[in-house]
């Protein structure tokens, strides 16, 4: 008994001094599954995270059905991050120290993503952020252990600006939820539209509290400024009341509306018949994408879950496959080797080629830009095109300045 006691004590001491990784690697046996730790807000943001998890399951089944990775089973240990940074960092610690995962994946909320990224940096653990949008993850707060899949707030805003900059709109009104995502979307939009059109002015700005939009008052305040164009970053529960009030009060008539994320099924589905006509949005018109690999994914997803895919589903599918390709190419799960491999690595994903840019660890996963329209009683996108993330990324000089620290 004393033998076991002292061995554990030594182990604990070794792990505590930060040499845990090598001990773990030594313990791992060749036949044991490769474990990846995944954490996300499955209870707090179930609408987004459950389709994401479903697609991860689909991808894992496919991979392990074909023999796994490097001859070993690929296993994702999935945990609820509670939607708060406090819970998330504890869960991350549990995944790293108890489950001995080789890398961390996941998170939806930007604050949780940033906290886990910082944790990964501290613990020298690879972290692939799947959904958080905040620019900070790959810019000001970026670190060498953190990578991100989804196009950031800046990238998606730039896609919209590129799509509207030909239009003769000088008077813009802005409405964004009052937190980091909304504020940075507004700041990005102002900056980019000014670059595209120096005459542009911003005649009204509204920042309703997240989830608490007072839609009537907000719409009236925007209309009062008589804008020619509106930039919207409201989403989730704030979007339908805003759209309804705006439709009723005629806010959108004859105006150009650029709206972030609105074309994603997550937000189009709840809008239903209320979907506005002709908004220029970023989104995911999954049912219209004809590429064979993507179609195979959609068919498999629908067959397995009897539900239509969301953007989260696509991300979950892409993330698992990227993880598999990464480990395969790196020839194992050594963190340093994985980082070296990951930087500038090219992936062949369900939506085509995606590269993980080395200088900021941001993938070139793009988004679809198009117009909203009503098809029957449901919203859809039309006149869309896929915008490769590579074309809207932060310029290299800016990345270098931001990531200096």
């Amino acid at each position: 008994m004393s033998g076991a006691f002292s061995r554990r004590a030594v182990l604990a001491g070794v792990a505590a001094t930060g040499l845990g990784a090598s001990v773990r690697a030594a313990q791992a046996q060749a036949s044991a599954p490769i474990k990846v730790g995944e954490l996300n807000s499955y209870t707090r943001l179930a609408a987004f995270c459950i389709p994401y998890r479903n697609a991860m399951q689909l991808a894992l089944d496919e991979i392990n059905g074909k023999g796994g990775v490097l001859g070993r089973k690929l296993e994702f240990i999935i945990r609820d991050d509670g939607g708060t940074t406090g819970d998330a960092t504890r869960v991350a610690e549990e995944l790293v120290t108890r489950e001995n995962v080789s890398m961390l994946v996941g998170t939806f909320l930007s604050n949780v993503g940033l906290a886990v990224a910082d944790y990964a940096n501290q613990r020298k653990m690879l972290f692939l952020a799947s959904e958080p949008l905040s620019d900070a993850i790959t810019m000001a707060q970026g670190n060498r252990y953190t990578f991100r899949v989804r196009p950031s707030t800046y990238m998606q805003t730039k896609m919209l600006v590129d799509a509207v900059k030909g239009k003769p709109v000088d008077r813009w009104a802005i409405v964004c939820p009052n937190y980091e995502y909304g504020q940075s979307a507004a700041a990005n939009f102002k900056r980019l539209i000014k670059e595209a059109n120096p005459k542009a002015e911003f005649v009204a700005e509204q920042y309703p509290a997240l989830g608490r939009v007072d839609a009537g008052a907000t719409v009236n305040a925007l209309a009062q400024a008589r804008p020619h164009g509106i930039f919207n970053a409201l989403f989730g529960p704030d979007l339908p009341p805003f759209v309804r009030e705006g439709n009723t009060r005629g806010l959108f008539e004859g105006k150009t509306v650029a709206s972030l994320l609105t074309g994603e099924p997550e937000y189009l589905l709840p809008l239903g018949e209320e979907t506005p006509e002709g908004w220029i949005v970023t989104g995911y018109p999954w049912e219209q994408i004809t590429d064979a690999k993507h179609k195979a994914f959609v068919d498999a997803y629908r067959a397995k879950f009897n539900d239509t895919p969301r953007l989260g589903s696509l991300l979950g599918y892409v993330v698992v496959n990227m993880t598999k390709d990464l480990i395969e190419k790196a020839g194992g799960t050594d963190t340093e080797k994985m980082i070296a491999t990951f930087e500038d690595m090219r992936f062949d994903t369900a939506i085509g080629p995606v590269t993980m840019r080395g200088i900021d660890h941001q993938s070139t996963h793009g988004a679809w830009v198009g117009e909203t329209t009503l098809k029957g009683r449901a919203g859809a996108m039309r006149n869309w095109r896929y915008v490769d993330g590579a074309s809207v990324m932060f310029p290299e000089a800016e990345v270098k300045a931001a990531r200096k620290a």
Partner: protein
Amino acid sequence: MDLSFLVVQFLSGLASASSLFIISSGLTIVFGVTRIVNFAHGSLYMLGAYFAATLIPRLLDLSYGAPSFWAGVILSALAVGVLGVVMEVLLLRRIYRAPELFQLLATFGVVLVVQDVVLQAFGPQDILGPRAPGLRAPVEIMGRRFPSYELVLIAAGPVVLGLLWLLLHKTRFGVLVRAATQDREMVGALGVNQALLFTGTLFLGAFLAGLGGALQIPKAPATARMDLDIIAETFVVTVIGGMGSIPGAFLASLLIGQLQAFGILIFPKITLVLVFLLMALVLVVRPYGLLGRPEAPAGAHAAAFGTPLRPWSSTEKGIALVVLAALLALPLLGDVYLIKVATEILIFGLFAFSLHFLIGTGGLVSFGHAAYFGLGAYGAALALKHFGVPMELALPLAPIAAALGATLFGFFIVRLSGIYLAMLTLAAAQILYAVAFQWVEVTGGDNGLVGVWPAPWASTRLVYYYFTLAFAAAAVLGLRHVIYAPFGYTLRAARDSELRADAVGIDVRRHRWLAFILAGAVAGLAGGLYVFLKGSIDPSALSIPVSVDALTMLLLGGLQTVMGPLVGAAVLHSLKDQIMPLTELWRMMLGLSIIAMVLLFPKGLVGAFEAARERFAGGGR
């Protein structure tokens, strides 16, 4: 700004005010009769919205027309009313005589349960309900389009107010409700069937919550987060209006509706803060709200703290030493993760202990203690991030920052008592939360501040564990010493009888203020230790769930026992740690555990243990 714009803005404000009033009137009626602040009122509102959003489309499929729509609204509200009755019979009935802290916690347990039930029953996706038939088209007001449905809402508020007036003044039930609101004992004396009266009141209150939710459907989707969003606002309305006063709730709703409608024009970025600032202001000027009346001091309070302090017996000293030794030896027994969890437990234990000092010793039921935890955490993090202060200096700044905050808020808070005091502490925490959330330039907004790691020498889990243990043990023992010192006795004297304390020359307010500052400082220290453990801080550290966690720890440990909160922290945190990976329904498990604790072990685990020991010893007094 032209007149038509202002008129339309005013009308929008009136529409929001009407909705707010309908919901708040239910809360205030229930409080008036039962003296319970029902945290689950927001959950009833959410259920009303979900019922309506799923039921009305089906009714409209049967026959499209206004009658189907309005029938759906009323049916949904009635269904929620029935759920209110269920809640009264199963839970509230058993806790009318319990201290208000227990009541708040029990109803918060219901909130957690309903969240998971809604997720299971209605699915995770937001549900946008249909518009009201016949009211889709806007009307023209001074050349501007205005939704006709909002005109209906504007009328609905005064109509509900009128109907409530008739109900309360022209029916026997109403007379009893008013009598109970004015003097609860009197109703018992009149020989009224209390159970029936209370059940009826809950039905009415829940019906109004459900009605408010159902009426919202043409405006906004039913979402799983609307319960906590609305409850904070509803609290504000009832507190500003005066708890138990229906006209007060009406007045306060009007104020808040207009404050929001016009506030967004002047301060578009700080709407969250405005409402709570208004509430704090009203409470400072009129401590019982605009139309409220002073509360008679609650009797339940004193009964909950009946036993004198004893010094530790030799057995207890022995236990304390064993526990300390076990804590010191823990790293030898466990892995890194266990050390991390143990560190968290120490920090939360310290936090809960500081709250226990405030509630158990000082008799001040704080519902916003997270404010000082968060202030400490942010104080240390800001010093480190913005001024490059090293950890050794940043950590002492944590209790100082929290103490400064507690000095400011405490000055106003100790002027109140009972439920109003609890609500003002909540408001203080919400103000800080909103500031942290919306002042992005300084606090990093919701992203918070990251990279707040300890100095290199303290950065391993092991060293930081001992570091935390040293601080936590010193602070807990120090605070325990204060409880036994004249200052602690003075606080307990003021808690037992304010009249008597005053009559023996004690300046009750000043001592409570000091207690508030001291408890705040200790909570701040816990916050400082927390931020260096986590490496990051964001506004959720200041949020209602953190305050509730601390209260739950007290409840688990038992309010009478000095060391109970530490046990509570260990039990709750371990439970959360164990349950969260096991089931997606962890919120429901947590909620049910809280409710079970309130009903089965009102004296907490330690209290239950002591009672059992006394019974076992056969002595008993």
